[in-house]
């Protein structure tokens, strides 16, 4: 009987780890690839930010000329958004969502690998402009006619278009994968309203990506045709319309703002309950607020275009103010979760609290900007730069770091060092506010964005200098973070399977999880299956697990701790 030696058992293949990581279709490895890739681009775009801030520290052109400066802020914005924040959060989604659902992998593992590998390819294409006579230099929004043949003379602009199209394709494929996974791969017992909040936010984000990103792709292709095949989509001299680009870009761009923030909100909504030892206050309200943000995000794009005179101001001002309502609901969810909780100020919690407070400031300046009279006054000034950094950096990037500290033990089996994490947080937090808070005042004083120099008589020197100090503090704060990550890899404190006493299923398996994720799953009767596994839920704990669920029982579960 030769049948016993037909095939080697799974796991006995000898492959070098390089081949293993290059060809993997395991969602956990792909998730880690996403995250590592994102951080590499984060460091590159961060260096560009330092170039910008150094140039602006004092009046006069010191270190770069204007053309280089334009390339720096364009690449900084493009890379931070498309190759750091979105992929980093997708990476955590990739790693965590199947685990939270109790699934063995994503729905389409090979498409998952494809959507990852398009990212470094697209990112390197965007960066390769520097090798061919200059990167794109029109700002990350790529407004026509700056991107037309007449002004956008660097080949980097074409590479920017191609690279972004690839990155967008990657996003779309990833979104298809997330939605299919969430609808088809949930463990038995996990109904939609028992999904962890992070999964909900990833789901809504994926729907936004699915419906918004193809519109950007259409716009990018139109732009490419204009630049290379003599098209005239955006050329007014032969019947085109430059404002059309703004409509297309922001029809994508505003949902994109929520694509960037929603998963970070999800991360924070997982962390706050765990470190407050309470359930999330108002789970369903949070879910409906997330869905409402997703729906409304398609009706606010023209608030970026108030000053074009081409949009109906009352409608877009109203919708923009309206979208602040579900966001405000979430703010109350978070505050009420903290209220009388047993707070544990570990590093993930610090970053989550940083998120809540900084995102609040960014949200408030956003509501200010929704009012056309204020927007007309501060359009294209540093007030807008301050606002978007409070939302993107104070919001999403704090969320990325919170997720990193929170899930690092799950991914590696080792816990990041707490004192170093706290040093990172406080330098980061103070530096961030020092860098971006003065920009509000600079904007009100009339300093336009995207300028490389300003007059010493303008009165902007002091605040700019303070801002530059803050930017360098943020850069310095990355050093303890890197030391922490490397040292923990080499000789970190073993974390165990569940160092934070989490609520959700990813903590029910080993750290790191086996390739197939779960040997067995706890019964799922709520959005916090692990909490009830450990602590029971009142008398319900004695019930047989296969008992039919009733609505009444659900209510008990959710209120179990309080």
């Amino acid at each position, binding site marked *: 009987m030769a049948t016993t030696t037909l095939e080697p058992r799974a796991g006995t293949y000898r492959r070098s780890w390089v081949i293993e990581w290059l060809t993997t279709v395991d969602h956990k490895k792909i998730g880690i690839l996403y995250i590592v890739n994102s951080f590499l681009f984060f460091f590159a775009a961060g260096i560009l930010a330092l170039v910008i801030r150094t140039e602006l520290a004092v009046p006069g052109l010191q270190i770069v000329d204007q053309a280089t400066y334009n390339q720096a802020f364009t690449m900084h914005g493009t890379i931070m958004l498309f190759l750091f924040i979105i992929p980093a959060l997708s990476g955590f989604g990739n790693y965590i969502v199947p685990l939270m659902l109790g699934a063995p992998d994503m729905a389409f593992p090979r498409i998952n690998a494809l959507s990852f590998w398009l990212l470094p390819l697209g990112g390197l294409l965007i960066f390769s402009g520097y090798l061919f006579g200059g990167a794109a230099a029109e700002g990350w929004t790529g407004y026509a006619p700056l991107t037309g043949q007449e002004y956008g003379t660097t080949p980097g602009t074409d590479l920017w278009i191609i690279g972004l199209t690839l990155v967008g394709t990657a996003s779309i494929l990833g979104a298809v994968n997330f939605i*299919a996974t969430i609808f088809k791969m949930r463990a038995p017992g996990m109904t939609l309203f028992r999904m962890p909040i992070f999964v909900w936010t990833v789901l809504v984000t994926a729907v936004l990506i699915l419906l918004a990103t193809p519109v950007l792709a259409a716009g990018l292709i139109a732009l490419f045709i204009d630049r290379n095949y003599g098209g005239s*989509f955006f050329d007014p001299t032969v*019947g085109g319309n430059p404002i*059309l680009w703004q*409509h297309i870009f922001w029809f994508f761009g505003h949902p994109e703002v929520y694509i960037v923030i929603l998963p970070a909100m999800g991360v924070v909504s997982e962390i706050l309950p765990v470190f407050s030892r309470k359930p999330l206050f108002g789970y369903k309200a949070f879910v409906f607020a997330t869905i409402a943000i997703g729906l409304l995000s398609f009706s606010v794009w023209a608030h970026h275009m108030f000053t074009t005179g081409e949009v109906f101001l009352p409608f877009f001002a109203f919708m923009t103010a309206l979208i602040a309502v579900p966001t405000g609901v979430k703010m109350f969810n978070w505050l009420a979760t903290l209220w009388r909780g047993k707070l544990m100020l570990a590093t993930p919690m610090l970053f989550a609290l940083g998120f809540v407070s900084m995102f609040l400031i960014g949200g408030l300046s956003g509501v200010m900007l929704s009012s056309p009279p204020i927007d007309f006054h501060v359009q294209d000034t540093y007030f807008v730069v301050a606002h978007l950094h409070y939302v993107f950096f104070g919001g999403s990037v704090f969320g990325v770091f919170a997720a990193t500290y929170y899930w690092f033990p799950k991914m590696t089996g080792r816990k990041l060092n707490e004192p170093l994490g706290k040093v990172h947080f406080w330098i980061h937090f103070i530096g961030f506010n020092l860098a971006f808070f003065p920009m509000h005042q600079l904007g009100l004083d009339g300093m336009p964005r995207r300028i490389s120099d300003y007059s010493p008589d303008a009165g902007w020197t002091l605040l700019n200098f303070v801002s530059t100090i803050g930017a360098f503090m943020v850069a310095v704060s990355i050093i303890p973070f890197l030391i922490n990550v490397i040292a923990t890899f080499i000789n970190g404190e073993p974390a165990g399977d569940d160092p934070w006493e989490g609520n959700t299923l990813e903590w029910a398996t080993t750290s790191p999880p086996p390739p197939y994720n779960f*040997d067995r799953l706890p*019964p799922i009767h709520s959005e916090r299956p692990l909490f009830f596994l450990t602590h029971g839920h009142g008398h319900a704990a004695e019930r047989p697990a296969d008992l039919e669920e009733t609505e009444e029982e659900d209510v008990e579960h959710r209120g179990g701790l309080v």
Partner: protein
Amino acid sequence: MTSRTMQAHPAGEHEAAAVMQHGQSGMPTALVGMLLFIASEVMFFAGLFATYFNARASVGAGQWGPPEGAHELDLPLAAVLTAILVASSFTMQFGVWAIRRGDTGKLKLWTGITLALGALFLAGQLYDYSELGFGISDGVFGTTFYTLTGFHGAHVFGGTVGLTIVLARAMRGQFSARNHVAVEAVSMYWHFVDVVWIGVFSTIYLLR
């Protein structure tokens, strides 16, 4: 904390095994993926249609059309091509119904006919392009006309690639009444491409 993992409920074992089969209930996951992909394609074409209508509005309906000196659009040819593509949607569906009954012979026949009709459509479109006498760079009408019809044509081409794969797999006997999700997925895509063409034809040729 390991103890917490280990003391999983006895029912968990049974449930973990059920996870593996869970995706099998309801619509197959591959079809869900295809429907989601088609949703994103709808938005892609929505973007292209938006550029068309925007250009039409800014030029003004009176001046809208091929540039001076070029031929008018060939409405009869486009109508014939429309009929071909719509007919191919029917032949595709006949193939799907055939394999649902387990009739692989009819599947091969109908898929082959669909592929031929798709190729005929593409050939007709290229012929149309060669006769029009204006190009993508001749004003904004030419730009939007070639972008919209060209990207639709590229999607038809993508569909014919899918059909070729379905045909090749059918030849090797890989489909049965129970196992033919690729046929269903390609047919969904093919119907989508057909519907987009009806939109393109109505917009460019009828809504002048």
